[in-house]
């Protein structure tokens, strides 16, 4: 089972044929792509960044303030999708948001949606893949400790130890 998962991770990450650790320890930050694409994509990415900022602020606050920032973040991601429904970064950030809130079921669909859109746009770079692997592992782990989740997370930690070393992805790290 573990071997099958490992093979699927390698296949998923595209590393089987491309060699190990293409990221050089780097992982996607959404602000790196803020100036790419057409006007709709740029505006959509800007809204994703606003959402990540709100999610980051939510980590700093307590109680109602934190709750408010979390809702603001979700609103920003949904608006990013409204502006550009084909923006894979928006689904990726929304998936992370749900995982942070403990909702793995919602997250899994969004990770897959994001992966499909990255694929469609030819953007499945190693920097993107590390997050897709890590988020998938996180989603497995959220539903209870599993060997599968650990394998995915371990792979993500190997590819980008500075980001995925702790087994999760913060909004600040993705921003």
């Amino acid at each position, binding site marked *: 089972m573990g071997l099958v998962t490992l093979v699927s991770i390698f296949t998923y990450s595209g590393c089987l044929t491309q060699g190990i650790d293409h990221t050089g320890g780097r992982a996607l930050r959404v602000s790196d792509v803020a100036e790419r694409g*057409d*006007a*709709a994509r*740029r*505006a959509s990415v*800007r*809204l994703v960044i*606003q959402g990540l900022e709100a999610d980051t602020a939510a980590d700093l606050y307590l109680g109602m303030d934190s709750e408010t920032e979390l*809702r*603001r973040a*979700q*609103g920003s*991601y*949904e*608006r990013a*999708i*409204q*502006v*550009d*429904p*084909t923006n894979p970064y928006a*689904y990726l950030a*929304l998936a992370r948001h749900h995982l942070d809130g403990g909702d793995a079921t*919602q997250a899994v*669909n*969004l990770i*897959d*949606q994001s992966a*499909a*859109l990255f*694929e*469609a*746009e030819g953007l499945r770079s190693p920097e993107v893949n590390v997050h897709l692997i890590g988020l998938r592992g996180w989603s497995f782990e959220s539903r209870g400790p599993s060997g599968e989740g650990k394998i995915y997370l371990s792979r993500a930690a190997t590819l980008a130890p500075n980001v995925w070393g702790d087994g999760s992805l913060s909004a600040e790290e993705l921003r």
Partner: protein
Amino acid sequence: MARRKAASRKRATSARRKPTPRSGGQWLLRGLGGVGAAIGFALGLALASWILEIDRVVELRFEGRRFSVPSRVYSAPLIVYPGTDWQRVDLSGWLLRLGYREQPDGGSLQPGGYEWHPGRLRVHLRAFDHPLRPEPARELTFRLAGGLIKEIEEARTGASVEVVVLEPEPISAFLGENREQRELIKIEAVPPHLVGAIYAVEDKRFEDHYGIDLRRVVGALLANIKAGHVEQGASTLTQQLVKNFFLTPERTLRRKLREAVMALVVEARYSKKEILEAYLNEIYLGQRGSTQVHGVGEAARLYFGKSVAALSLAESALIAAIIQSPNRISPHRQSERAIKRRNLVLDLMLEQNRIDSAAHESARRETLRLAAVSRDTGEARYFLDALSQQLPDVYDAEVLSSQGLRIYSTLDPRVQRSAARALKAGLERIESQWSGSRKDAPPLQGCLLAMRPQTGEILALVGGRDYGASQWNRCVHARRQVGSVFKPFVYVAALEPGGGPVVTLADFLDDAPLEIERSDNPEPWRPENYDHKFRGPVSVREALERSLNVPAVRLGQRVGIARVASVAHALGITSPLPLVPSLALGTAEVAPLEIARAYATLANGGRRPTPRMFVDVVEAGGMAKENRPLQGSVPAIDPAAAYLAVSLLEGVVDRGTAARVRAQGMRGPIAGKTGTTDDEFDLWFVGFTPELVAVVWVGFDDPAPVGLPSSRGALPIWTDFISDVLGQNVRGRFPRPAGLEQIAIDPESGARALAGCPRSRTEWFLEGTGPTTTCPVEAVAEDDGQPGFFRRTFRRLLGR
């Protein structure tokens, strides 16, 4: 002992007193007195009981929920950014519909004000109050060039703004039977000059009387006697409230008496502040279409596009002025009359020392600046009906029409308007082509639904031609034969790699006479093409592009009808599908919403979205009540097979039965499928881009021939709609997953085209399923010894 003596004396005295005889008159008087007392007692009892009943009615109404406030439905917000085509998104229309007011004289803009300059729009956005997604009030400058927003700046700091979320539009409301619309206000939010204006013109001694102003009653009585007819009224604010709150509009003495008593009871029970607040929320202040506008909160929005707290003195005086007769003195229709009465109110305010002469003069000089009237055109009524069904059961009609909820929907007003316009124009265009004998036919119907494929959000829904004439929502409830729009599901079933695909896009299907035995009919079924011709072997691609029936039936038979139905269900069809050979030709009856969802699954790389019509519900008090988070989509079919289907459907638009889409100038990634049922009863077109799926259905409620094929009936409506919404150049690209390869093939044989092959085009294949034969034939590289389908067919045709 002494006590006994006293008692004995009392008895003796009593015994000495003898009864004196009475006269008849005395008896009568005494009797009358008794009857009078009894009548008086009964009357008193009845009066007390009546007053108690009135008191009970008053208490019930005041202590309970006093007002029915219809729930309002809002659109999705308009989001603009540098690069937005501001005319296409109808920015100026948004300003008008949200009640923003032009301030052509420049200067400092108030929230809700804007001014146009050449190449520049300055607007002071109002704050958007939402518990989850609030937006601050801020003044922005939009720099415009070439039809686009070039730049957005914070007016105060000059800082660049990358994206602006504009307030959602109120699109409609769940009105109750009385069709009253109001925005509830608290007395603390009402500016003193509005209260002063109302006092001045309606009830100047409101603070002093007990519900009835006797001085005014006497004054009015004398004036009316002098005039010889009813010239003046004497109703206090309390009486007006009572009249509107509890009583019918009949003009009888009994009702007037009841009104007076009720006013006294109300005044006895409640404070002046409570009574005034109820009055300000209840008072009738005009019409918006067929909707009655009640309360100063709603009136402030209707006439000035602002909250009641932001009303100026002159605006407050105008609202007070129209209380007397809101329609006769309507500021929209009778502006001069309204200004004249407004000035009278201002004069009264000065006279009663409620304002000073400077304020009076300034307010009298103020020109009347009204917000544009945005009417509820009814375009979104079908959407609202469908939305109410998607809301949880606790939100029944009574709750929706009374509890003042704010429902934030997914509807895009611009897309909705385009859909309504395109459908109406399209149906009229079709009818205009009919000959005179058909003019008496019932109205042609149609529906148009637009959905975002990734999220299932419904952006527009027009469920029929005219909601007023028929509320039957054809997009959601009408199950009609789908015809050829079903065929792609057969092809998807054949292309899915589960157990190995049955065909590839380079394979050929036999378009030749076919007979299928039927269990319920001794005659076999012989499917035919629309032109009754057979073409021999045709490629899979050509078969779908030309919407050929016989190859589709043949393919359905090869795949298995049960498998076809299973794939259709996986894509999003929920109606029952008959497991008969003709299912491949779309003989099943399916609702347009299901078709939209199934095609959205194809457009979204095989991931099925869940239709979503609302985002959240907010209580009147501002608390979030219901939230429907964006759910994304779930895997339904193989992504690669979905891409192959999309590629086929792009061919339908590029070269096939939907080529008219391209002929009308549409560019970019577009896929779609026409569908016309037998005798042209139902015309369908489903088309999609990477961002939008739209389905159009045209037909009669009682099936009858429309007289046109889909390509001339439904398709032009779709193209008209999409070009209006997205422009002629569509952006994006369809999701192309891993596991696909593009190979050059010989279009005539389906073989892999190598150097020396006289014909070549590229085709998509699932990895590892490319042709094994080659063109030229001699160059066979990987022949597994098994003849391909084309060769098999040819051999069969040639008898070898």
